[in-house]
């Protein structure tokens, strides 16, 4: 069941440069416009900008004029049991139309059920029924937005007895059927593999790496499960951990240089702190391919 978007040209939109970017936070709006830092791109959470006007659009418009932009959705509930929220998809289409981002991504997760929004990325069972539903939802999104989307691998804390596929096989099948790309969240790989006793490098090796078009890096919090085993939590509230930087280098060895986002959504530090983390990613990208910056359109 290939969707209509499978026939879309692969690159209707300019792509993000193979450089590092950071999440755009309101507390940094003015600093960014005052200092115009040398950074590859900014990423926004789509839902934060689904308001009619005011300061958010004022600043985003000015920042977008100067930088490549990635729009990252957190509320489409692609893994949801019910039909997609068409009103939300319309809001998303309007936002993408207004800002023409180089990239649009969403999550392999659900966040709405029965009309309620839970504001978290909730896990799905990896079975045939979910696979059909996720592919149908991605097909609808790509048809409506008239572009390919990237799907992000999840950070999860539990697994389902109902799952019949490995997460990597599930993702591979979604990519094959829907034609979507992959947003490889390396922090999520580390979290999920730790939380479920798997090897992170094997996990990455089992993904359809040719489809990866962007990477996310973030920090996690540490807890333990009921048996005392490590339970990592996707907090986005700390710097990228050493182990995640190492896994990032490993992933880049397999994929080549890719646009890389430093994600920070909690305990947000001053802009220079995030820019320093982005430079750390860029040093790795440049080591891999000195001409990486030349990829920027």
């Amino acid at each position, binding site marked *: 069941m290939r969707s209509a978007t499978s026939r879309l040209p692969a690159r209707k939109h300019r792509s993000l440069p193979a450089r590092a970017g950071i999440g755009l936070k309101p507390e940094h709006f003015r600093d960014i416009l005052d200092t115009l830092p040398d950074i590859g791109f900014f990423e926004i959470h789509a*839902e*934060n900008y*689904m*308001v*009619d*006007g*005011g*300061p*958010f*659009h*004022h600043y985003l418009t000015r920042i977008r004029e100067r930088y490549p932009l990635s729009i990252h959705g*957190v*509320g*489409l*509930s692609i893994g*949801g*049991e019910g039909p997609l*929220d068409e009103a*939300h998809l319309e*809001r998303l289409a309007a936002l993408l139309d207004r800002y023409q981002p180089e990239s649009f991504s969403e999550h392999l997760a*659900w*966040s*709405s*059920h*029965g*009309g*309620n*929004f*839970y*504001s*978290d990325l*909730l*896990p799905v*069972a990896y079975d045939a029924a979910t696979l059909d539903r996720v592919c149908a939802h991605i097909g609808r999104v790509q048809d409506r937005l008239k572009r390919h989307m990237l799907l992000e691998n999840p950070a999860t*804390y*539990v*697994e*389902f*007895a*109902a799952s019949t596929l490995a997460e990597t096989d599930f993702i591979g099948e979604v990519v094959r059927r829907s034609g979507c790309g992959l947003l490889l969240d390396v922090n999520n790989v580390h979290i999920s593999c730790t*939380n*479920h*006793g*798997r090897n992170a490098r094997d996990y990455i090796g089992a993904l359809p790496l040719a489809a990866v078009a962007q990477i996310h890096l973030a920090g996690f919090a540490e*807890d333990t*499960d*009921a*048996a005392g*085993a490590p*339970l990592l*939590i996707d907090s986005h509230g700390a710097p990228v951990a050493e182990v995640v930087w190492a896994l990032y280098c490993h992933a880049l060895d397999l994929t080549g240089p890719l646009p890389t986002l430093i994600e920070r959504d909690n305990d947000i530090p001053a802009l220079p702190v995030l820019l320093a983390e982005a430079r750390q990613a860029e040093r790795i990208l440049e080591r891999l391919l000195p001409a990486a910056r030349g990829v920027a359109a």
Partner: protein
Amino acid sequence: MSGPAVFAEALLAPAAACPPGLTTWNGSAPDKRFAVYRNNVIVGLVDALADSFPVTQAMVGEDFFRAMAREFVRAQPPRSPVLALYGDGFPGFIGNFPPAAGLPYLADLARLEYLRVRSWHAADVDAVTSERIAAVLAEPEGLPDSLLSLHPALFALPSEHAVVSLWAAHQAESPALALAAVDPARAESALLCRIGLEVEIRRVGHGTALFIGLLQQAATFAAATAESMAADADFDPVTTLALLIRCGAITGITTPRRTDA
């Protein structure tokens, strides 16, 4: 119920058992792992309310506010993924929240904060030009039957409590000192407008708040003036009109003879 339905219900239940069908690689009980999701959902939504209602929180303290917000989140979870405007029902919930009954002004204070969020995110619309206003005032006989369109970031809130003074006290360098000077039982009305990128909140007369509400409901200038003067002897339409012009809050004037924005 389906798997996600049971999962969703357990997210909002304060002490529900873990949903069935969850597994863990090491055989550990999944309750603690599931609790991460429940915690993410509740904390995330309570944080969203804390962002929108900072003065309400300061008034009752963080612990009280977060306990009250948790109850609200469970009773009225968001119906949209756009959380900027979550909390529409929170002031009403506060008004009916028995532990807050000792603070009768708290619901209106929360209403003021919610309007501030709406004003902040409201659509960008240009005010009418000064030439247009001059043209209307040059032929004042057309004014009574005119309809004024107001900026979407403009709101008026009449209250039986000192909401503006309470809110302003929390912007002071020393809120405790400023609060001590406020009589919460004094009736105040608030006007909210966006000047540049900032939302300004000022105290206005009851008649002014009423007048703005009537204009927003498409009353003519004359009808809104008459009703506001009847309700508030101090109401002055000329001063109010000047205030609206100064705030850039008039976005269109439809006179009986000609229409112009």
